[in-house]
């Protein structure tokens, strides 16, 4: 049996599970909030065109609208000023093979439960590697915080001094890029950076360093608690938007039952 035929058979038989890491595109799903004088991220919206009625008797369909960065979404290098000159930095230019790759899941859920500003630091990563081995080059690194289980206001967790949610330190992101050459970084929160990420140097270090190095981001993931620390493969293909800086997408994880 060829590898692909074997792969398809294993999915059909359930020895490879397909896990959905995607939030439903819902008009009420939170998006990132910027100071109001800046342009804002469009919320997901859906307008009925017809529903088997006088507007179209035999069919139902909707017009939808949203930002490239609404819901569970992909960040391309061209999203950030540091990545503006990265070759093939837009979603339509990225090598499609990059959209399928292995994932390392660093469980920060205990820390995030105790501290809403929990930081993924180099020691945390090193601790994880002691247990699960060195992060292979070309991996997605997913920061599990169980943040996706929050709904409503606690999700953004916006306070008078800005949002509070976990994220990586500048050093941790540099480490993942420089020492481990990862494919990208994925989170359950609304951005790859911590809620208070604007107060690091540089501000928003995950965005700044990842995209400057041609790496990708995955945001608003859910279901990371269903993944093993290593061994899962992500399928995360953004829409082919001309010069797109990101895209809502369906993120699937393939997990081998052992």
């Amino acid at each position, binding site marked *: 049996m060829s590898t692909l035929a074997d792969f398809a058979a294993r999915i059909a038989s359930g020895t490879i599970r397909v896990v959905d890491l995607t939030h439903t595109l819902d008009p009420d799903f939170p998006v990132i909030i910027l100071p109001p004088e800046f342009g804002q991220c469009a919320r997901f*919206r859906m307008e009925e065109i017809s529903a088997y009625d006088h507007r179209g008797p035999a069919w139902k369909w909707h017009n939808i609208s949203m930002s490239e960065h609404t819901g569970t979404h992909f960040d391309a290098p061209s999203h950030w000023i540091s990545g503006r000159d990265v070759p093939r930095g837009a979603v339509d230019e990225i090598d499609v093979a990059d959209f399928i790759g292995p994932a390392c899941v660093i469980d920060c859920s205990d820390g995030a439960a105790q501290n809403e500003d929990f930081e993924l630091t180099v020691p945390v990563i090193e601790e994880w590697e002691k247990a699960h081995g060195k992060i292979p080059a070309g991996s997605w690194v997913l920061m599990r915080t169980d943040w996706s289980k929050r709904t409503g206001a606690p999700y953004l967790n916006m306070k008078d001094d800005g949002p509070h949610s976990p994220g990586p330190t500048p050093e941790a992101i540099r480490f993942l890029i420089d020492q481990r050459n990862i494919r990208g970084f994925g989170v359950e929160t609304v951005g790859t950076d911590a809620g208070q990420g604007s107060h690091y140097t540089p501000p928003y270090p995950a965005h700044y360093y990842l995209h400057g190095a041609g790496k990708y981001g995955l945001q608003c993931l859910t279901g990371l608690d269903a993944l093993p620390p290593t061994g899962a493969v992500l399928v995360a293909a953004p829409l082919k938007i001309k010069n797109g800086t990101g895209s809502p997408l369906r993120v699937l994880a393939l997990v081998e039952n052992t």
Partner: protein
Amino acid sequence: MTQPIAPPPKKNPQVRSQSPTRPPEVRSRAAMHLTAAAAEGRFSLQRCGECGVVQYPPRDACGACLSTDLPWEDMPEGGTVLAETTVHASPRLYFRERMPWRSGTVQLDAGPTVLAHLHGDVPRHARVRIQARLDHSGQGVLIALPAQDTPNMEDDPLMRALSADPKHRRVLITDARSPHALALTRALRQAGAAMIFAGEPEGWRPYPQRAALEAEGVEILPMDVTDTISVQKLAGEIGGKTDILINTAQFLRPGGVLDRGDTGFARDELEVNYLGLMRLAQAFGPGMAARTADGVNSAIAWVNLLSAGALCNAQPFGSFSASQAGAYSLTQSLRAEFRSSGLRVMNVFFGPTEDDSWYQPLPPPRVTSSALARAVVNGLQRGLEDVWCGDIAMDLRDRFRRDPKVLEREMTMGGEGA
């Protein structure tokens, strides 16, 4: 003395809701001026420019000298009842449903004798105050009120028919995040509103006045006027008990065309200010229009809060003003579409406000939320269609009426040099 209206009992679900009926709507073109003044709460009649005689009813030529120079003029409200009758039979459905109906002739201090509906507290041959009010057909009619206010006079059936009084009614404030929502809530409570609902967009974002609204007993329910599904959902839940809808949703940013460079905020302005109104009307309008004869807490009014920039583009809020002009035009369509139901559409125009942070760089005078809320409630109690709140709105209105082109030219001055 008028008997106060008791809070209505819960509705009997086995009884068919009454269909709305209307008093006669047809008027001469001349008489429409009486309606236009009544829409703003003014009592106006023609005074002959040649001989000075005040005219009634409205006409095209002076009854005394046949001059066609008949400008409209606000009149003193004093008068004396000459004769009265109580009607017990009428071929008009509207009046049959409201028998007996009291009306009379009143000798105005201004000269002519007019026909007026008589308030129940007006004694025979008494001194009265004449006011022009809009009836269920949206036409101006004259009412005679007691010379001095009497207890509970606003509860007289005539007054209920010629107002949109919030007393005992259930009100929906469409956007709880509006800087005016709290002041509106307090003013409506004071006016006797039975329930206040508020739509809350994006409950996942905190805002400071939420706790205060809850403390006022407001029922906060999710709705975002840019999200059709959420509007339909809330209308499905409370549309059948929304008696007054006050649309407080507004998206405001400074900027015109060239200084923005994109259509992002303009799209938001249209989504909220124009399409939001349309979504609300499509979801709540039919249900409200069907309930305009539903007793003490019948559906009665649709209130729009509009910038006076709807009349003439107001820099530096050029694009916002355009969205307000669009919304204003849409409210006129709504008026036409609600007309046969008797559901009133009241527009409250105002200038820069104290409480909306985007107006912070503008000099005074600015409208406070409490003044705006008072204007809304007062307008409802008087059954108005157009309310102008604050000096800037009234000034714009007056200049617009004098000459819209002159106003436009004044509002679009350029700077020196190029």
